[in-house]
């Protein structure tokens, strides 16, 4: 029954969005984490989403004659990439981790970007939850058919 596939799809969407929320939380929490000279400073992290291949998902749409469109149903997290943006360099000669000219490299986390990302992720999560509950209601009604 294809209605039950909605649960899989929404579930994968929810897990992907929660990974996105996790990276956002990590970025915001580490926005001020400074590393001692010689050690890598924290870089902001972002997940990369992809659509799972239909064939890999066991052909979730048996009725479709569409084999050309390879985008599948489930949301897949391909990996987490670190940002290449330059670090935030601040002049803090008193800082214990300052280099010899008195500069400290702070992580390249953009708080505004992260907040926007967080809101977007939580909204997408909500939509997936909503979708799931709708599918549940419909499936329940379907089961009651003919009573």
């Amino acid at each position, binding site marked *: 029954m294809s209605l039950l596939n*909605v649960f899989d799809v929404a579930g994968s*969407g929810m897990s992907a969005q929660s990974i996105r929320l996790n990276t956002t939380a990590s970025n915001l929490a580490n926005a001020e984490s400074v590393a001692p000279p010689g050690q890598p400073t924290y870089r902001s992290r972002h997940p990369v989403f992809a659509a799972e291949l239909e064939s890999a998902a066991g052909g979730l749409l048996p009725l479709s004659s569409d084999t050309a469109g390879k985008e599948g149903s489930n949301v897949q997290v391909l990996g987490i990439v670190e940002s290449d943006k330059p670090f935030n360099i601040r002049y803090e000669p008193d800082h214990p981790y300052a280099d010899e000219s008195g500069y400290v490299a702070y992580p390249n986390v953009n708080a505004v970007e992260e907040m926007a990302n967080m809101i977007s992720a939580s909204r997408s999560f909500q939509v997936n939850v909503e979708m799931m509950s709708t599918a549940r209601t419909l499936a329940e009604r379907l089961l009651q058919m*003919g009573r």
Partner: protein
Amino acid sequence: MKISLDNALGIHPDALSLRSERTNLLARNIAQADTPGYKARDLDFEAILADKVGRQVPSVRIAGTDPRHVTEQSTGQGGYDIQYRIPLMPSLDGNTVDMQMEQAKFAENNTRLLASLRFVDGRFNSLRTAIRGE
């Protein structure tokens, strides 16, 4: 006199299964709203249903003049086409999901699914009444 269940239920079971298929498709679109490069997909409900109940929709048919040509018959298994949506406002990452539109279509499709469900239910109730003869 015999009662054919297929005739009694009419078009509604087909509509129901197609609607649930479409619910699934729209759910995918919504779930993939943040996936770069994902193309939103949908199916043409009216055309497919018309095809299913045997009415021919006026459309362009592919002529197969050679057995190796790909025609609609050779795609087999009563399949139908899932089409890509034409984006109103494509985004930079190649994603063509318009969240508001997809949600609206999802809601509409579910309402229509419930309507089909109610029709089937009604037919079942009529059948039951006929069987009981009360």
